[in-house]
């Protein structure tokens, strides 16, 4: 087997990185503190388990994985790995680990730890929400069902070399290794704390946990022995939880808070963005998110493609954007604009109520019909649902709105024949990693159209599933463009069947105090959501 040597590429990225993280790496002095607030409690800081808004980026600062992204971008780069090689058939990934990386407890990290950490995530006893991402590693079935102890596809070749054997070529594997679920944990600490490891996290990250007062605050302290010298920029981050976003904003004005982690609350959006005091500290960024209406293709009359197209044409997206004060851009396809594979030239279904009526008549439903729209019950979702309800009434579809708690809408979507239509707002898909494949499998593929799945349209197109598998088997980076084109095509085919009516892609609006510096991109980082804690700095120590 001829090995496709990628080490060179990796080395270039790597040598570019200290300089690229960026020119200010030399000039910026380390030190200072930052205060961040969140409304909800931080649930756990265990990388195998944490999967919510608050802890996602916090975990990334306490732990590291083999891969990560250039700060503020969606560009992959090696992190704990120094270099990697991918076999020509795309099924063997070999990583050379960085030397001298230390855990917060002082022990050196080795390849055994990497193996242990991923096997721990896959182990059913861990109850990790991320186990499924590792499905392409050999031995996954046995390990995830508990039949085998570890993953036969992970081999430690020497303390600083680890090899992954995959059961199929997987072009997304490097992204998977950048997920929190693949972050490296020290076995002895996990065993010491057992189920409470998530409250006593120990990793190799730029920060270590200093203090955690449950329900009140957490303090992250700089890890002095961090392998990446120069990072983190800050000495300390204080997280205060249980703070309403509106209150956080008032405290920011008083200088008590630097970053309100939940962003600008919708109710204050217009006021804040028009306020000259805030004008210069608001940062806008794209988000790998799409809000959509699903139509259950197994429930008549949505089994008729004409009806689904009619709904697509009947919804006035511009009006919905006005309802949310323009905090989004209109969508016409499943992928968001900042995702590779987004079809720029695709026009989608334009707003055309007359055309929609004609399509309904074609389907033999000239008199319209009655149906239900499920929606999550927090503002502004019910108002958006009402706008959709009015639009659909125009073409004769009488929609009754079912406004429920988030968990209940998700449960209804996962039950066949339960929810004819769902507005995804408040629980919509935000990509786990910046690759077009991440918008397909669970939400549009056959695999997700199962009880308890997230494919709420119950759309299952075997041909597209095959095309998706084919695209993801293209691992050769030289053919990356070809692969992206294939994915682009898949989503346009999905739109021909119209199981969704894509509505908008949310934009993120965030705010930071004058005191905190760093490239705007770091505050709307597409991966380290919501803030890239390692890279931002304090202006008052400069």
């Amino acid at each position: 087997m001829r090995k496709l040597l990628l080490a060179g590429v990796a080395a270039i990225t790597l040598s570019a990185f200290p300089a690229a993280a960026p020119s200010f790496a030399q000039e910026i002095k380390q030190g200072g503190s930052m205060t961040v607030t969140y409304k909800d409690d931080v649930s756990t800081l265990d990388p195998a388990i944490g999967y919510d808004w608050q802890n996602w980026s916090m975990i990334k600062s306490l732990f590291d994985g083999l891969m990560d992204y250039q700060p503020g971008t969606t560009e992959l780069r090696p992190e704990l790995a120094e270099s990697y090689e991918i076999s020509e058939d795309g099924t063997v990934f070999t990583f050379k680990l960085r030397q001298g990386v230390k855990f917060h407890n002082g022990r050196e990290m080795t390849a055994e730890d990497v193996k242990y950490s991923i096997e721990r995530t896959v182990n059913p006893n861990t109850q990790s929400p991320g186990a499924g991402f590792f499905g392409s590693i050999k031995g996954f079935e046995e390990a995830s069902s508990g039949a085998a102890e570890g993953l036969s596809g992970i081999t430690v070749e020497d303390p600083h070399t680890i090899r992954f054997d995959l059961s199929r070529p997987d072009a997304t594997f490097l992204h998977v290794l950048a997920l929190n679920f693949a972050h490296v944990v020290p076995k002895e600490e996990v065993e010491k704390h057992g189920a409470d490891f998530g409250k006593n996290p120990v990793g190799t990250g730029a920060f270590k946990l200093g203090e955690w007062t449950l329900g009140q605050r957490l303090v992250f302290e700089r890890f002095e022995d961090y392998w990446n010298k120069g990072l983190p920029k800050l000495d300390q981050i204080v997280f205060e939880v249980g703070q309403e976003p509106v209150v956080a904003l008032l405290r920011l004005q008083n200088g008590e808070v630097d970053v309100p982690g939940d962003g600008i609350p919708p109710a204050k959006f217009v006021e804040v963005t028009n306020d000259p005091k805030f004008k210069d500290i608001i940062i806008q960024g794209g988000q790998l998110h799409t809000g959509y209406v699903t139509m259950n293709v197994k429930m008549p009359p949505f089994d008729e493609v004409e009806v689904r197209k009619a709904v697509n044409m009947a919804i006035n997206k511009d009006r919905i954007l006005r309802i949310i004060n323009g905090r989004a851009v209109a969508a016409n396809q499943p992928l968001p604009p900042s995702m590779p594979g987004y079809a720029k030239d695709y026009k989608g279904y334009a707003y055309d109520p007359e055309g929609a009526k004609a399509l309904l008549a074609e389907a033999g439903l000239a008199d319209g019909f009655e149906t239900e729209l499920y929606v999550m019950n927090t503002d502004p979702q019910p108002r958006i649902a009402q706008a959709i309800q009015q639009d659909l009434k125009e073409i004769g579809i009488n929609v009754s709105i079912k406004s429920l708690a988030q968990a209940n809408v998700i449960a209804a979507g996962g039950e066949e024949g339960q929810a004819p239509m769902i507005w995804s707002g408040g629980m919509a898909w935000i990509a786990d990693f910046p690759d077009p494949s991440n918008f397909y499998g669970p939400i549009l593929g056959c695999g997700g159209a199962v009880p308890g799945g997230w494919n709420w349209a119950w759309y299952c197109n075997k041909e597209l599933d095959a095309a998706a598998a084919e695209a993801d088997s293209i691992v050769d980076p030289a053919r990356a463009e070809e692969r992206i084109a294939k994915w682009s095509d898949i989503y346009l085919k999905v739109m021909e069947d119209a199981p969704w009516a894509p509505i908008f892609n949310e934009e993120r609006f965030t705010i930071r105090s004058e005191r905190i510096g760093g490239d705007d991109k770091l505050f709307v980082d597409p991966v380290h959501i919501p803030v890239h804690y390692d890279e931002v700095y304090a202006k008052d120590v400069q």
Partner: protein
Amino acid sequence: MLAYIARRLIQTVLILLGISLVTFVLLYLVPADPARQIAGRSATAATVENIRQQLGLNLPFHEQYLRYLSGLLNGDLGRSYLQRTEVSTLIASRLPASLLLMAGAILCELLFGLTMGVIAALKRGTRTDDTLMIASFIGVSAPQFVIGILLLYVFAVQLGWFPIGGYGTFAHLVLPSITLGFLGAGWYARMMRSSLIDVLRQDYIRTARATGMSRTKVLLGHALPNAILPIIAMIGIDIGLFMSGIVVVESVFGWPGIGQLAWQAIQRVDIPIIMGVTLVSACAIVLGNLIADLITPLIDPRIKLR
């Protein structure tokens, strides 16, 4: 007396059992699947099933309930689904904040309620009386989140006298305590007024005045102590009222107590936390009532416990 307490304690246990059963049934009927929630959106059906088995969610209802009860008897409230921490740890870490807030609220309601009641009683029939009674009426009727946000806006944002929400110092305690105590203050003002008016009509007050004691002395030495007694017994019952109030007040002020914990858990259907907080609150209410019942005969010898 001891027999009475024993009987009441047995009743208490039965009431708590009933509450645990009702809550458990209600949460069981919620159409959200905890296993799916834990497993997350990327999980396979097998993973979900595995989690369901580990948590015993696949068992029939009565077995699940018995499992929970047997845990409860061993002092085990279970582990939070989403926080992955012992519920007892979570509640214990937040209980002091809630107790502090309640103490502040009791202080506020006594301070405001009794003062208003005494003034209204002494100025009975005047405009002052009317104004105070209207104020107390507003106190008992206004929703706490409205009062909380108003106080926050005026005293913290506009005037800057107090911090804008949060926890830690005495200044943080003032506004939430007033908000939580406002409702009780309204009740106490009305009760204190009628109680004091009653007492002031009594013969012994007239006698005391006739002996030449000053008005102030009679009021402080004879009238008030007698008028205040029925109100003291009410405090126990207030603890129950506070349990519902803290959910709102703690959310408005970002107060890290069990009310906030419950509110976050409800939004995310974290069943073990909801169960745990409900049971702890139920305990507080039942014990509060028990204390109120036990204090009453000490205050008023005409009442006998049987």
